[in-house]
């Protein structure tokens, strides 16, 4: 549409459809900006958390922190979370050993055998994923701690219960991606069902299952609430015997963060950075392994 610039026209004539189109394009632009801002805000919060923890943590994180236990008086400077780091690795290690074999077996049951009970189990697994971990802690307290006392084992059982549904869900998802032709080929050769699953199906899904396990490990590393009710913590010395009460990195961060002493908070920040580093390491490694997966692979 041409507007005559010589004569001062009574407002430039814009037809109704054009105005309508401009309004629609305006809405589109506005929503594009709003959605990008939401995404930018989300990433901004992530960077804020990571950046803040890194800045505070690096003030104290160093060889002394990684090789010492906390001082007897929490107000004192120095010391580190070595006992918590050892505790975390040990408790999560035991929890992994306890949860992975049954997790994979349950996934095999759900995917390979099927049936009404299997779909019930599948549904309950999804419900278990949403179970508050503090409730899991209370359950393990009632089952185990009342009889055998607070211990690293009790903490490992609680974390295993947290990990179990995560492992099942990840493994089941991977097993579903294994092509049926592979199973049929194996069965057609006269191989039994059990052998087919163990020698054909599981190896095909292996890297996907490992990814799921590592993500579950990362999740367990960061858990604090169930450990408060089971492993309890042990701030003073290195305890490697899992039948005794144990400290973990997460418990030490919690304990030191809420003391109000500057020195304890400095240790807690260094601990938080260490914990985030471990968790991110597992998360990123899991993604990289997932990429090499023979099935699916996102």
């Amino acid at each position, binding site marked *: 549409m041409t507007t005559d610039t010589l004569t001062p026209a009574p407002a430039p004539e814009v037809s109704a459809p054009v105005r309508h189109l401009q309004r629609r394009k305006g809405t589109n632009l506005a929503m594009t900006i709003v959605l990008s801002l939401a995404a930018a805000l989300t990433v901004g919060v992530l960077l804020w958390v990571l950046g803040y923890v890194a800045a505070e943590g690096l003030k104290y994180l160093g060889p002394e922190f990684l090789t010492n236990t906390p001082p007897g008086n929490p107000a004192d400077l120095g010391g580190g979370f070595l006992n918590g780091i050892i505790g975390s690795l040990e408790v999560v290690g035991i929890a992994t050993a306890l949860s992975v074999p*049954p997790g994979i077996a349950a996934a095999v*049951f759900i995917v390979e055998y099927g049936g009404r009970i299997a779909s019930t189990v599948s549904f309950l697994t999804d419900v278990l994923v949403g179970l508050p971990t503090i409730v*899991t802690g209370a359950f393990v307290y009632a089952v185990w701690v009342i009889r055998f006392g607070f211990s690293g084992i009790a903490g490992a059982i609680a974390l295993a219960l947290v990990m179990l549904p995560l492992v099942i869900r990840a493994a089941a998802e991977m097993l579903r991606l294994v092509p049926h032709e592979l199973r049929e080929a194996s069965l057609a050769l006269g191989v039994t069902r059990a052998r087919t699953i163990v020698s054909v199906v599981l190896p095909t899904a292996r890297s996907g299952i490992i990814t799921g396990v590592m993500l579950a490990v990362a999740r367990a590393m960061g858990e604090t609430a169930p450990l408060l009710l089971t492993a309890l913590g042990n701030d003073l010395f290195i305890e490697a015997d899992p039948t005794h009460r144990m400290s973990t990195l997460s418990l030490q961060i919690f304990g030191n963060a809420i003391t109000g002493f500057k020195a304890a908070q400095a240790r807690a920040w260094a601990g938080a950075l260490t914990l*985030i580093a471990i968790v991110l390491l597992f998360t990123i490694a899991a993604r990289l392994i997932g990429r090499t997966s023979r099935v699916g692979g996102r």
Partner: protein
Amino acid sequence: MTEHRSASRGESSLLRRSRWRSGDAAFQVGVSAVGWLIIAILVGTAVFLIGESWSSLRHFGPLSFLTSTRWAPSEATSTQTDPNPYGIAQFVYGSLLTSMIAMLIAVPVSVMVALYITDMAPMWLRRPLSYLVDLLAAIPSVVYGFWGIFALIPAIRPVGQFLADTLGTAPVIGPLFAGPFFGVSYFTAGVILAIMVLPIITAICREVFAVAPIQEKEAAFALGATRWEMLRMAVLPRSRAGIIGASLLGLGRAIGETIAVTMVIGNNVLAISKSILGQGATMPSVIANEFTEANQPFHLQSLFVVALWLLILALIVNTVGKVVVRRVGKDIA
């Protein structure tokens, strides 16, 4: 029929075959047993929580917990039954209020982020962006709580102050926003919960949006729709149930979240403070705070009552959320 056929192949083959078969059967029995273990864990959790809370439930009566808003273990004696010193209504209020705040913030943002990732961002940005959002879920709860105390509270103090100064004096809704704002509050806990459930809701929404039929998207574009109009016509209407399911699963997570909330909510267990800027406690936070130091009559047993109600609430929210998400999945397939 199969027996007949294998019998004709001679005895050794038959024996080997039956041994194979029995190994096969044993394997199936084994994995089925593990399946039953999952059922046993869930049932066992309920049974043991009821068992541990039984004496307290019987002593005070199961409903007296929900009608009182005062949690004062020091006032408990082994004989007195009324009033129940272990009121938990304020924890239910705290859990619901903080979760609601979290949902009000997280659901719209998650939907927008998910839409941006699936349909709007440049192709090269989509995968890295979804990784970054997923990373929010990898940060441990205790780190969020610690960060909340030192970084988030100073940052949202002006917001809290603003709410107290404006809405806090308004009629009707005033009490809900009444100051003063000290930093630790339901509001702070709600904001942290929003950050923590955002990646969960976003991840599910992304999957829901990704399966919107491409034909309908292309049809919308062919009719001259702008990108936003396409999202509104072809993606969002089909995804409503999925968004609701995703929100319920996020809500379930928010209700059960413990450590981060414990660190920033103020842990006021004595009464309901109605204002979102006030201090309170949630069901998980009181368990985490008092469990290992419970030394009053019926103290530990009453904490198990809290855990039992928390289990019931979480199971309802999660089950409904899961059913909704599953039905959506079936519709799509």
